[in-house]
């Protein structure tokens, strides 16, 4: 187990280094010049050259990456081109909002997916099952900005149940969390359904029924406990899916997290911010995957960590 953990941690570190290298190279492949964006439309070639030297962008790519990586290792994310302030504190100030949103989305997808899956499994082949599965298909395939704007229009503007975007209270969290988590809820309902159906075929369920146990008790106590585990084990992987979703959802709902920061940084070609957010997001994705793998054997003893 310790050996496994050590191996996984070092692999994770390698992945992170790989992510920074790829992102770093990609920002150079964009056919655009950050110096032109900083220097503005009245600049002379001399001024642009000066800024290029100040930022170290005149050096070879490898040298630039090495000095970036060295600073990063010390926890220094560099200075934003557009804001002229440090990127580390900038991300730190935005991260709690994103984590809160992701937590809300995880709760939302579980609250949606598990009951829906249970319901569909218990009505297998009936109309209820078909409706539930069609809905889950719809939620998985609806673009998040469409979903988000529609929820805002109906529940916040027409019905007035929730605030029209913003941040600060539970009522602000609900719509963006549902928007981010609904697709996951759809997936979970399908996983839950097939997992339940498989378990309901097992001998011990037949025994329980034969003992005269109520169908309700069979479903909620005996079957659910086993069927829910593979679903829960997936939560760690959601972190990665959510990290890409927050860019859209945070922009629709005015949620002040790193997704919003990323979107604005891309628009202004603020490379240090783009790099910083990507690195931090990768860190969370890697951690989420690791967590999912570590949790798996606790849930299913047949899985061994090697």
């Amino acid at each position, binding site marked *: 187990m310790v050996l496994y953990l050590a191996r996984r941690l070092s692999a994770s570190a390698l992945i992170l280094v790989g992510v920074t290298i790829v992102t770093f190279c990609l920002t150079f492949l964009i056919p655009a010049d950050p110096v032109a964006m900083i220097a503005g439309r009245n600049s002379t070639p001399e001024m642009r050259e000066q800024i290029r030297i100040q930022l170290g962008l005149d050096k070879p790519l490898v040298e630039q990456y090495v000095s970036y990586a060295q600073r990063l290792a010390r926890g220094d994310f560099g200075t934003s081109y557009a804001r002229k302030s*440090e990127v580390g504190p900038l991300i730190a100030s*935005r991260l709690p909002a994103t984590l809160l949103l992701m937590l809300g989305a995880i709760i939302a997808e579980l609250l949606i997916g598990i009951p829906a899956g249970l319901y569909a499994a218990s009505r297998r082949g009936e109309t209820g099952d078909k409706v539930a599965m069609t809905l889950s298909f719809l939620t998985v395939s609806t673009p998040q900005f469409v979903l988000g704007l529609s929820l805002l229009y109906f529940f916040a503007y027409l019905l007035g149940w929730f605030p029209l975007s913003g941040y600060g209270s539970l009522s602000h969290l609900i719509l963006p969390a549902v928007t981010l988590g609904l697709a996951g809820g759809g997936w979970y309902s399908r996983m839950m359904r097939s997992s339940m159906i498989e378990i309901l075929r097992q001998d011990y369920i037949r025994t329980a029924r034969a003992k005269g146990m109520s169908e309700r008790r069979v479903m909620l106590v005996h079957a659910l406990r086993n069927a829910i585990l593979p679903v829960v084990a997936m939560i760690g992987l959601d972190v990665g899916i959510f990290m890409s979703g927050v860019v859209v959802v945070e922009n629709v709902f005015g949620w002040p997290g790193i997704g919003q920061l990323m979107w604005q940084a891309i628009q202004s070609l603020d490379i240090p911010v783009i790099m910083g957010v990507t690195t931090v997001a990768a860190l969370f994705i890697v951690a989420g995957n690791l967590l999912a793998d570590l949790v798996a054997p606790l849930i299913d003893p047949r899985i061994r960590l090697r």
Partner: protein
Amino acid sequence: MRAFLISTAAAFALLAAAPHVLAQSPKQGGAAVVTFNNDLTTLDPQVGYDWQNWSVIKSIFDGLMDYKPGTTELEPDLAESYTVSDDGLTYTFKLRDGIKFHNGRAMTPADVKYSVERAVNPATQSPGGGYFSAIEGYDALAGGKANELSGIRIIDDKTISFTLTRPDATFLHLMAINFAYVVPKEEVEKAGADWGKKPVGTGGFKFVEWVPGQRIVLERHKDYYRSGVPYLDKLTFEFGQDPTVAILRLKNGEIDIVGDGIPPAQFTEIMADPANKDLIAEGDQLHTGYVTMNVTMPPFDNLKIRQAVNMAINKERITRLINNRGVPANQPLPPAMPGYNTDNKGYPYDPDGARKLLAEAGQPEITTELYAMNVDPNPRIAQAIQQDLAAVGIKAEIRSLAQAEVIAAGGAGKAPMIWSGGMAWIADFPDPANFYYGILGCAGAVEGGWNWAKYCNKELDARAENADAMVKADQSEKRIGEWKSVFDEVTKDAPWAPVFNEKRFTYHSARLGGDPSLFTDPIHIPVNYDYIFAKDAQ
């Protein structure tokens, strides 16, 4: 007796004017909320250079000069008065008494000097430093060989002078742009990298807080030197507000101004609603949308082909495409700009004439590329241009890219045609010179420059410089006349096809009052926050 008559007449005139004056000076108080989709990047006046932070900075800081609210007319601001030497090379400003920074310290000429030098100092990475290149000592400071501008002299505790290396008729405008706004050195140094997040100025609004990604709060500066303004006690900017959502919030009475403007998709519906009649202010902007044609590469090195493009584009149709949020353009300068020539009708829409010109040029079939920024409505406009060009035999492939990529392609001279929408050009100050050097002059026609047509006409450059050497007040008319003729020549040479001049429409709540020109201020884009007022405070 005569004197008596005159004074009586004056008294009557005053009486007659009095109700008007009263109606024009609202009570102070109340608050307003403005929404933006994107958080501001910075409130550092020497660095901030986008349309969002531009007017917020204007409310927090002041310069030696400013403009009358809602107009493009220069007037002294932190300066009480100024004189210009006979050779036009020295400007001497006398500062007003009793100007205080928000931290309570009195402003001095040393602050003015520090601030302009800060804009030029390469360490600041100011996008506006180049504007001050006429000040003596610029090259040394900009080149990192000096720590100050030798041309700026503090004469006494109320007087400061600027010596220039060449006469520059735009100099007073330059003292009114954000990059020359006065900042207190001690606060800049204390805040370090965070200075752009905790600004301290002399302006009508004082900075209170900035919650990243959420809001910026300003409150009225009690020691502001202009008594009676700003009218609002508190001004809040909320971020992360998609304009579609912001409009719903405005209808709910939660916010007062949609800072990003009305989204194209909702424009017709909102304008058609009679409830909005008094809530939408309409005004001119110092903006021209144009297609650049790279004159250094075929086929656009041929004048006839450039003229043909000008005649092929149906500007009326494109203006309708943007819901008539503009007027068709006929010359590079927008109508609200001094130097706009009402006699210059530009090129008529004449596809047959265009085909004839192409035939005369010996190239009835042309294949080329049209670059455009990939944000609505620009791809749609590019498509309309593409159709118009196809109708006369010019096949233009659209290259729809991110803003930074179009700018890079334009600067590198790789783009045969660029539709300027979303990138250029709104004037930084209301003078024709601001529409020439960077985008039509030789100075901008270099690698990385903004003259995407790469049009460099040395003779016109010389005439432009000659015009800007006319600095005397009584030469101003002659100077504007000279600029007119420069732009007439540009129109004939056709490095651009001007398409439309955008108008600004600002949607605001019923509880806000103020002249519509304040909500579409040509200088304080989008809104002059200092002079709008809250009706519920009256």
